[in-house]
């Protein structure tokens, strides 16, 4: 893999930041700015997936779980903020007399909520990762396990209507930490926070990728046993990447709630988790910008094509996914390098070697 110069990537992030934070608010309508905010949330989760899957080789198929932790923590706080001293409306519907569930109580505090958004995914991913990586669970087993967890959590939320809102989810938030959400100025602020967080996450992985840890992570992905024989415990290396990716998914989920205004189990279940992966694969999982841009593209496709032609959109997405995996295993972001390589030596094509490596990884 040829490595682009670090300053080039950094200025890339700078351009991206200007586009998101300065240009987009000026040129986009409120409606599309809100949509862009939503894509930013998915992109934040995608950046984490790029780290865990693209660089770390862990196919995290259940990032919806961590997305949900952040989203529901935020949604519970906003619901309580909206309800004030009373019990949230949807709970009264099911049982007017019962008190607020115990686990809701601490989410009245803004500080606790913010802490929970950060700590819950770190703790859960830490525990889960420790248990799995120390036992050397990897490849398809790891993927299926994380996916099952997302299904289980979605089912749990669906079945606890009074405690979590069930399938209808949590919605109708009026305030965001004291700001009225209906106010366009506040909406802009929420968008800017999400966009800024995306930039921060990109900067974080940029530093991780150029650091020694980034090299060690790639080494662990490609030859875990060899890393062990250099005196490292690969489980710890993977654990760090997994926890960071979980944290990013949680942050994405937390910002999703005030921007979209509703969170339901459908946004965090198996299908949603796979959709997050799809964006990453499309964009290029091992690259810096690929995951974020891929996720935004999938998000945009979903809200434009997905609303005008919903049946067709699923097929288009599926087809696109297959084409990219078959012919561009490193995603769309590998296209420029491909063209450059093809121009330099039209006869030689490095493609087969890459494809074989890809297959090996899936098998392991």
């Amino acid at each position, binding site marked *: 893999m040829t490595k682009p110069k670090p300053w080039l990537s950094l200025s890339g992030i700078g351009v991206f930041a200007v586009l998101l934070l300065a240009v987009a608010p000026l040129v986009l309508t409120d409606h599309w700015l809100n949509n862009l905010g939503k894509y930013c949330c998915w992109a934040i989760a995608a950046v984490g997936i790029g780290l865990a899957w693209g660089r770390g080789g862990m196919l995290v198929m259940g990032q919806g779980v961590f997305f949900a932790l952040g989203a529901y923590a935020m949604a519970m706080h906003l619901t309580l903020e909206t309800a004030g001293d009373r019990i949230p409306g949807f709970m009264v519907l099911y049982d007017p007399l019962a008190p607020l569930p115990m686990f809701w109580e601490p989410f009245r505090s803004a500080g606790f909520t913010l802490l929970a958004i950060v700590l819950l995914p770190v703790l859960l991913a830490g525990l889960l990762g420790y248990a799995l990586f120390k036992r050397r669970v990897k490849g398809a087993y790891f993927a299926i396990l994380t996916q099952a967890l997302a299904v289980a959590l979605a089912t749990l939320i669906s079945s606890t209507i009074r405690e979590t809102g069930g399938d209808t989810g949590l919605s109708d938030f009026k305030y965001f930490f004291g700001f009225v959400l209906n106010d366009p100025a506040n909406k802009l602020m929420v968008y800017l926070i999400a966009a800024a967080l995306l930039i921060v996450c990109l900067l974080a992985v940029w530093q991780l990728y150029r650091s020694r*840890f980034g*090299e060690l992570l790639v080494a662990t992905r490609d030859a875990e046993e060899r890393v062990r024989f250099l005196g490292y415990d690969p489980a710890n290396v993977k654990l760090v990447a997994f926890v960071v990716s979980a944290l990013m998914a949680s942050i994405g989920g937390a910002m999703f709630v005030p921007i979209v205004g509703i969170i339901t189990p459908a946004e965090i279940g198996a299908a949603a988790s796979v959709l997050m992966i799809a964006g990453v694969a499309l964009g290029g999982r091992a690259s810096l910008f690929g995951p974020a841009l891929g996720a935004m593209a999938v998000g945009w496709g979903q809200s434009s094509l997905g609303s005008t032609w919903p049946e067709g959109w699923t097929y288009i997405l599926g087809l696109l996914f297959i084409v990219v995996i078959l012919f561009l295993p490193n995603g769309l972001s590998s296209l420029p390098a491909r063209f450059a390589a093809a121009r330099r030596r039209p006869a030689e094509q490095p493609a087969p070697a890459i494809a074989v490596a890809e297959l090996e990884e899936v098998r392991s």
Partner: protein
Amino acid sequence: MTDDSLVVTDLHVEFSGFVAVGGVSFDAHPGEVRFLIGPNGAGKTTCIDAVTGLAKATGSARLGERELLGRPVHKIVRLGIGRTFQTASVFDELTVLQNLDIAAGRHRPSVSLLRARRGVEESIEQALEETGLAGELATPAGILSHGQKQWLEIAMLLVQDAKVLLLDEPVAGMSQDERTATGELLQRIAAKRIVLVVEHDMDFMRRFATRVTVLHQGKVLSQGTVADVQADPRVQEVYLGTAGAATTAAMSAVPEPVAGTRQGQED
């Protein structure tokens, strides 16, 4: 017996009932190029697997005062045991420098992992010089020649500052010149470290071994200098299948057995 010798005593390794290694004892000291030879399936690689924690074993393997058996792989490595594999296993996507930098990493504090590398560490430069890879600093390891990959692996053991280098068929597939270069490299390294080589190549063994242990069917058949071992009639019998009639010279005529019969043992 000095403090920094590798002493293996009565090593037993079983794979679901099959005794791969049954009571092998040998020792290795700095200053000698130690060879472990034997026909295919003799248990040579399994001995290395046991010492490095890859295969479960009973008995004892000590580096100085420290017992190695029973510890997890990465902890054994941290005690100073390094190894290579039959097939060169370097990180293909990373450059030579990156490969070596990762190998050097266990002496650095974990926090330093979060920073990018600046410059080339001295130990890495020395290892590059020693193994003749100085010109390949920025080359992705995946496109190195087979011999260069093996040298990179040895260089990785050097920057890792391994006290013991366990080399599994380091010259397999190398040209004659490369073999000579490797042998001379090993002799230089052995001045300060323990070098234990598992090999099929009799010619290479004869040229560079100071002491040899011959394994056969999981047991030690013979032990001593190259001359001792070659004169041992039991060794001749094992390698030629006919007792007595063999001459020592005939040993070199033994075809090189096919590598890669221990697939099942590795998991």
